[in-house]
Every structure is written in C-alpha cells, then in structure tokens.
C-alpha cells in the first residue's frame, strides 16, 4: 500500500495556525505513507499537478489531502486523482482548516490536532476500497399527478420537448381550481379564457395522455424506472362511447350537490362538471343515483344517444412504467366551517367562502354572474370581506400565509363594485396586506382609491345575524376602537390547505411532507422542485400555497429539471450506497422495515433461500439499514463500520 499525503498551507489560512511543513514531515512517518509534501494552494492548478505527478512517478495507490472542508474541494480532488488513473474513492480529505486552523489559536496544539486529523484520514483511506457507479437505462415517459394549471403546464412543456406524458387526474376533468375561478388578479382577465385553451392543447397533444377520474394506487421501482398502478375509477359510463352531449344530465331525475360550484347549486347524479370540461365525459355519482340506490330509473341509459351508459362497469388497475413523476396535486380550500364557530360555523347563510363567491361572480356560474344574498336573493348593499380565515392563525393550526387571499380579496372587492354598482359599501378586514408581486401592490391601491374599498386593519371577532343583517364585530387596530358593520353579505378569504389525501399519496411515493400535508422540497433554496426521492418532482400548490403565475413558473422549472434528468439515456448512480453480504443475511427484513426509500428487496437465491438485496439505483446511501441490521451484514460503501471504528481507534491511540 502506497499512500501519499499532501498538506495545504492555504496561504496563511492553515499555515497561520498549523505548522504545515512540520505536519508533512510527521505524516511521512505514518504507516503505509510513502510520500508526504506540503503545498501552498493544493486546490490550485500547480497543486493538483503536484498530486498527479506524485501518483504517476511514485506509484501512489491512495491519496490524502489535508486542507479545507470536503464540502469545499472533495469533488475537485477526486476528479484530480481520477485523471491520474486512481479510483476516485481511494482519496480522503482531512479537514484541517474549518475544523482546526480556523477555530484554534495555539500553534502547537493546533498542529498536534491537525496531525491526528491527518492520521484519521490516513486510517480511513487505508481501508478504502475502489468504488464504481452503476449505469441503468432510463424510461423517458413522465407521469404528472394532478391536472390543474401546474400539471397542465409541466405536461405541455415536456410534451413539446418530445417526451410522452401521462396526466392522472382524480376528478373527471382537468383544470383544477383555476377552472373554478372567475377572473384572475391583477389583470382581471377571464380565468377560463386563459385556461381552457391550454386544457384543449393538452387533450389534443400527440404526446399527452390524460387519465381523468383515475388515481395512483401503487408506485414501485426507482428513478428512471418507476412502475405505477393507476386505478381507473368506475364512471358507469363508457367513455369511449360518451360524446358529452349532456342529454343524460338534463333528463336525470336525481339531484346531487355541485362540487364544482362549491355547493352553491345542485347538479345531477350523472353529470359533467362544466361545459368546457376536458375530457367532456359524464360520470354517475352512484351514491345519489336512483338506480343504484333504489334499483329503478335507468333514464340515462334510455336517453343516451351513444349507448354509453354501463351500470356494470368496474374500476380497473392500469400498470404503466415511467422514468420520472411530477407531483401537481394542488390544493383544497381550508374547511373554515369546522374551525370558526365565531363566524357562524357555516350556519349563517350569507357568510360564504371566497371560492363560492368566485362561482357567484362567474357568468357561467349558478347565478349567471348575478351577486345576491343566499338568504333572500336580493343584491347586497354592504359586502364585508374577512381575510386570513385559516391563514396566519395559530388558533386553528394554520400559522402560514396562504399568499393569494390578499390579492383575490382585492380582486373580488373590485368586481363587487362592478357587479353591484359603485354605491355598494365594501369593507375588507385585514391583518397585513401581502402584495409582493408584479403589479400587485398597485392593484390593491386601485381597489382602495379608484374603487373606494374600505380597508380596516384588524381581526373580526364575531359574526352574528340580527335584523336580517350579518353583524360584523371587530376592532380597527389603527383607530384602536371597536367597529361593527351590518353586512348583507360576508365573504371569508378562506385560506389554502393541502389537497385532501396528499399525505397518503406522499407515503405511496415515499416523499416527505410537512405537518400541513404540503410536500417537502429537497432543499428550500437550491433544490426547490426536487424531492428527496430521486426522480420525483414538485409543481404548484402541492408544495406550498401559490398563485397562478408562481405555479406556472415553477411548473416550467420542474419540466426543465425533468428534462435534465431524462436527457441522458443512462443514469449513473452514486457508489456510496449500502450493499448486503447475502452469505451472512439472516432474512429478518428489518432493513425493509426501516428504509425510507424502499431500496432493500427480498431476492430469491439459487439455493432457494430468500435474502435481502439493495437496489443500487434506489439506495440513497443514508445507512439507516446498516445501523439496523443485527448481523451487520449490510455495509455502506465509503462509510463502512470498520472504517468508522478505525478512525475512532486513531483518535484514541495514546
């Protein structure tokens, strides 16, 4: 074994406190060290050249560089030794700058400590083994889970780049929440007019397959090679025949709550959410259908011109392979009724949520765009908006800001004036105005100045009915006095929460999520659209509350990241992974229990026994299994138990 040690001065950064020259001389005396020298700047071109020369001329078989933190230059030096013909993993770094020269002052003691740090690195490199990356084929198809604006955007970008994309949407149409919106801030242009063309593009794109009314059941495999079970729910309508003529919907005798209009109206048991639905196909909600509940009716079957109705239809599991998965599962509106008894808890008719108001404002909505009180269908004279309902409110366990409410409230306030006339009294109770976005602040200003919307800074403590009005009692913290407004209509800026079932889906995909069910990015600053599970990406509000522009921007960013991954035909895996010595495995499967990435699998051997096997491409190299395996037959390449023990040994040698 021929180890070379290179001690860096790093100018005076190290040499100022550590006697680099003396250190080099002592290192030369270490067991198996055949060459040791000190260099002014080891990472510099001449420094690296010196290392490569020593490797070639002295036949070094392992190299230790004592310099800065491996986080700084490990990659640099591994490349350096590799160019000189050494396996890059036969290199070790001794951190004598951040962990020594920079934190100590006494030259003698610091040098002594640096010497021990070098000894540890030598001990580790001595037992190091050459490591090699695996290469695996990549499946270039992409799965996008969720057909909202973010999902559609990612899908279109990827499809335009030539990749085959499948959108899985659990509702019967794509479009998501944006399809429910009337106008968008700050431009007040029609939401549907922007979105529906994109929906149609997606539907007609040769590279995009839309699987609506479907959900992801199981995900196995790993980056580049995911296997996904998609459950196609039973619509009781044969979509290959259905032509979306809505005849069944008109004739159906059974009513059902209209989710798309967020409960403001009723629809039929067999329905198509809205006219521009994509795909425009009917679905029977069996829980409301007379045939399924009482065993008579079958009207839809009779009226359907295409003979598409199929009461026997069963849900089916479709298996597909993908190389990457994009999570775009969007958001839900905070269920304020359960958390705000002081606002009537949903019992006061004229207290509605922001999304309900959107539907009311919408020309194709349940009221045809006519704003009225639900109690008496009269046009309101006084409308009060209350912000931060289910946002920035510890008391309901939602400390975060939903980031869109300030803006959509301003938008709705303005629209109220244009719908009901400028003489309508409009109040907005707010905590702070969060208008950080292009043209946002100006937009809020316009609401206040041009449209004379009265902004009251303060929380509303109570809503109650009195004399046909909704009394709004709150405090104006700027004037420091109680205020009470008799309102005809109260709109709650209900906040954003993670989509229903988001966390269980996260478990299916083995990605992490925060306490609110929003998916966790790999790094908040530097890897904002990746997850810790290689090959799974994030787009839109499933990560955190976002408005449309941010969602779309991120969606395109995500598409770019997916393209970066799938641009290669083969994937190189990190060699720093766990491997099982199957001759010692006792098949207790603890490793399977604890792995966050499902990297270990049961593998049947020729002798008929079943042993654990770690899938190289799935393993992320955390080593939890190593610490769990009772026989220690799993070892973590680059961080073997013996290498750790040897380093500890070096520390403790007197």
């Amino acid at each position: 074994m021929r180890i070379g040690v290179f001690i860096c001065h790093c100018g005076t950064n190290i040499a100022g406190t550590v006697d680099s020259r003396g250190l080099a001389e002592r290192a030369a005396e270490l067991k198996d060290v055949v060459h040791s020298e000190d260099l002014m700047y080891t990472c510099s071109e001449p420094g690296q050249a010196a290392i490569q020369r020593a490797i070639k001329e002295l036949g070094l078989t392992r190299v230790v560089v004592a310099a800065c933190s491996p986080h700084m230059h490990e990659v640099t030096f591994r490349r350096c030794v590799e160019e000189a013909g050494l396996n890059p993993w036969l290199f070790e770094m001794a951190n004598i700058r951040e962990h020594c020269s920079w934190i100590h002052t006494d030259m003698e003691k610091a040098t002594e400590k640096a010497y021990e740090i070098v000894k540890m690195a030598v001990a580790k490199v001595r037992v190091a083994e050459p490591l090699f990356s695996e290469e695996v084929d990549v499946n270039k198809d992409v799965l996008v889970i969720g057909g909202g604006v973010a999902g559609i955007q990612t899908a279109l970008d990827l499809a335009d780049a030539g990749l085959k994309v499948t959108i899985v949407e659990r509702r019967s149409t794509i479009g998501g929440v944006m399809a429910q919106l009337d106008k968008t801030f700050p431009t007040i242009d029609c939401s549907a007019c922007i979105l529906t063309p994109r929906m149609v593009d997606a539907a007609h794109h040769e590279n995009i397959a839309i699987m609506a009314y479907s959900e992801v059941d199981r995900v196995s495999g790993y980056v580049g090679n995911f296997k996904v079970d998609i459950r196609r729910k039973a619509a009781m309508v044969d979509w290959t025949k259905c032509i979306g003529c809505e005849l069944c919907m008109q004739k159906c005798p059974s009513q059902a709550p209209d989710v798309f209009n967020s409960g403001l109206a009723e629809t039929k048991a067999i329905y198509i959410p809205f006219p521009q639905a994509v795909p425009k196909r009917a679905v029977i909600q069996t829980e409301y259908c007379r045939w399924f509940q009482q065993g008579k009716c079958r009207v839809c079957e009779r009226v359907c011109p295409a003979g598409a109705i199929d009461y026997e239809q069963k849900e089916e599991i479709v298996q597909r392979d993908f190389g990457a998965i994009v999570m775009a599962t969007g958001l839900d509106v905070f269920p304020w009724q359960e958390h705000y008894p002081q606002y009537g808890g949903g019992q006061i008719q004229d207290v509605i949520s922001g999304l309900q108001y959107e539907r009311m404002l919408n020309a194709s909505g349940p009221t045809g765009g006519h704003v009225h009180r639900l109690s008496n269908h009269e046009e309101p004279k006084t409308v009060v908006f209350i912000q931060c309902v289910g946002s920035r409110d510890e008391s309901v366990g939602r400390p975060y800001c939903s980031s869109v409410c300030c803006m959509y409230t301003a938008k709705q306030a303005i629209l109220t004036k244009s719908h009901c006339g400028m003489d309508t009294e409009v109040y907005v109770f707010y905590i702070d105005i969060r208008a950080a976005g292009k043209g946002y602040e100006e937009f809020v200003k316009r609401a206040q100045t041009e449209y004379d919307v009265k902004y009251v800074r303060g929380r509303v403590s109570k809503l109650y009915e009195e004399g046909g009005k909704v009394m709004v009692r709150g405090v104006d913290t700027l004037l420091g006095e109680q205020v009470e407004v008799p309102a005809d209509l109260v709109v709650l800026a209900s906040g954003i929460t993670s989509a229903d079932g988001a966390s269980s889906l996260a478990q299916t995909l083995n990605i992490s999520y925060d306490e609110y069910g929003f998916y966790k990015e790999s790094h908040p600053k530097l890897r904002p659209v990746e997850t810790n599970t290689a090959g799974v990406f994030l787009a839109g509000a499933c990560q955190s509350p976002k408005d449309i522009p941010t969602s779309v921007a991120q969606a395109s960013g995500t598409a770019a990241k997916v393209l970066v991954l799938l641009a290669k035909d083969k994937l190189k895996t990190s060699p720093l992974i766990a491997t099982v010595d199957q001759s010692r495995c006792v098949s207790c499967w603890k490793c399977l229990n604890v792995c966050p990435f499902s990297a270990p699998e049961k593998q049947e051997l020729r002798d008929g026994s079943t042993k654990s096997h770690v899938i190289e491409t799935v393993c992320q190299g955390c080593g939890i299994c190593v610490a769990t395996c009772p026989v220690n037959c799993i070892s973590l390449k680059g961080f073997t138990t013996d290498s750790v023990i040897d380093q500890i040994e070096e520390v403790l040698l007197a």
Partner: protein
Amino acid sequence: MSDRQEIIRELAREALAEGRVDYFLGWGQGYDASQNIPVFVREVTDVDRLQWNPLCHHNLTVFLKRKMPDPPDARIGVCVKGCDSRTLVALLQEGLVDRDRLYIVGVPCDGVVDRRKIDREFTGEVIGIEFTGDKVLARTAQGDSKEFDRTSLLLDQCGGCHYPNPRVADDIAGDTVPEPEGEPQWPSLAEFEALSPGDKAATLAAAFSTCIRCFACIHVCPVCYCWDQCVNRSRTPALVSQRVEKGENLMFQLVHMFHVAGRCPSCGACDRACPVEIPLYLLHEKMNKELYDMLRFEAGVDLEGKPVLQAFSLDDPFGEG
C-alpha cells in the same frame, strides 16, 4: 396448580391424538425432583411426562425460533406462561414464527420459583422440591430439609409482572389469574441504580469478568435468531473481540441488549441460563424500564405492535429541538 397440569395433559393428548401437532412442548421433571426441564412429547402415551408447578421457568418459545423446529416445518403444540407469550407475540410481530404451525396452550401463572434462592438456603445439594398449597418443601442429598413460603422464593421479575396471563393462546389451561393494576415496577434495579458511577463500573467490571462467552444467554433468548451469524462471533465489523475480557464481555452483552431492544419482554431466560450467574437483568430490565419511561412501550403485549426501534413518531417526546 395440578388441575392446570391435568388440563395441559388433556389438551396435549387431544392435539396429538387428532394429529394436529407433530409434537407437544411443555415442562417436565429433570434428573431429580428438584429439576424442571423442557419436555417434547411425540406420543399420546407420553403426555403424563408433562408437569405444571412453580419450577416451570423455561420459556419454551425459544424452541420455536429459527433452526429450532425439527423438522423445520413441524406443527408444534407449545405451553406459554404470560411472560413466554409476550416473546411469542414479539416473534409473531416480526413474522419470525409461523402462527399456522402453532397450537398455543396458555398457562396462567402465579409466579415462578427461583431455584437459586433455594440452593442458597443449603450447604448440601438440593435434590427434591415439593409443593403443597403455598408451601415449598426442599430436601438435600445429605438429608436436611426446609419449608418455605412460595412467595418468598419467586423470581425477582415475577414481583413486577403485569402479564401473568397469556397474551396469545388457542386454549387456556384453567382460569386466568387477576392482573395487577398500576404502573409496571422494576424493584430489582433500585439497589444498582443507587450506586455512584464509579461503583457501577466496578460492579459491572467484576460481574462481567466471569463471563465465559458460552452464548447461553444469547441462544436461550427467544427473540435472538442470528445463530452462526451473530455479530458477537463475527470479525467484520470488529465490534466485539474474541478476547474474553471484562470490557469486551460487557460489549458482548450490550450487543445482545441493543439487538433485542424493543423486542425483549424481559422473560429473564438469559439471566437464568447464565452458568456463572452474571446479573444480566441489570441491563435488560433497565433497558425495558427506560423504553417504558420513554414511550410507554412494553414489548410483546399486542400483536399489531411494531418493535419500537424499527419505528418512530414525528413527535417523540424527547431529544433536543
């Protein structure tokens, strides 16, 4: 007591006669009337070898773990006391035994007598122990004999026992016994816990210097299953040296302890099996006490449970923020 014995014999007789099991595993008399041993009954005619008395300390589930059943797919009838049944539950939780191959006879237990406590009462060799009601009569080869109260001879751990009745069983041998109320107790630890660090170290050093690495503690442990692959035998990683010295011997036992952490219901089999009487309960009971204190966790009490160190909770109530 003896009626339980009759029921055990009857259940064994039926199971064997109906061919439901290949052999039936219970307790019986050893080489003299003071000894109790595991008994494997294969023939109906042998069921009368089965015994039930306070000497039946063996945790028979050890004979169910990997490599023990012979043939490997044997259908086995087995008797379990409350504590034994907990190790069985622990094994079932981890899928280390096949429930379908087991016929479990639960034996409600009034506490097991600590043979060593009796031996300490005599200079001669105890060769006979008889039980009448709550009295225990012991006699030696040299002819002396003494009578004791059964309760005064019980294993220390029986004092803190909260599960005298089986947690899992197909049939129960007789009526269940009342289960103690309140929090679990670990009385046998108090004396050691009160020592200074230095005295603890000195005490352990002395205790573990006598270890002979016979592996009785490990092989008699029902939830230990690595056999020839036990890391205590292995050279890589170099966790435990084959040098039989106090430090390494303690390490040897700590390996056992951490590998059964969250799976050990402190049945005490290791402690009783040790031929040089090392107080192993000091480690294993303490571990269980702390796990209970940490997570209100007790191993092997419910079939749906998960070994506590193979799981976690986002809000475990400890650790610095």
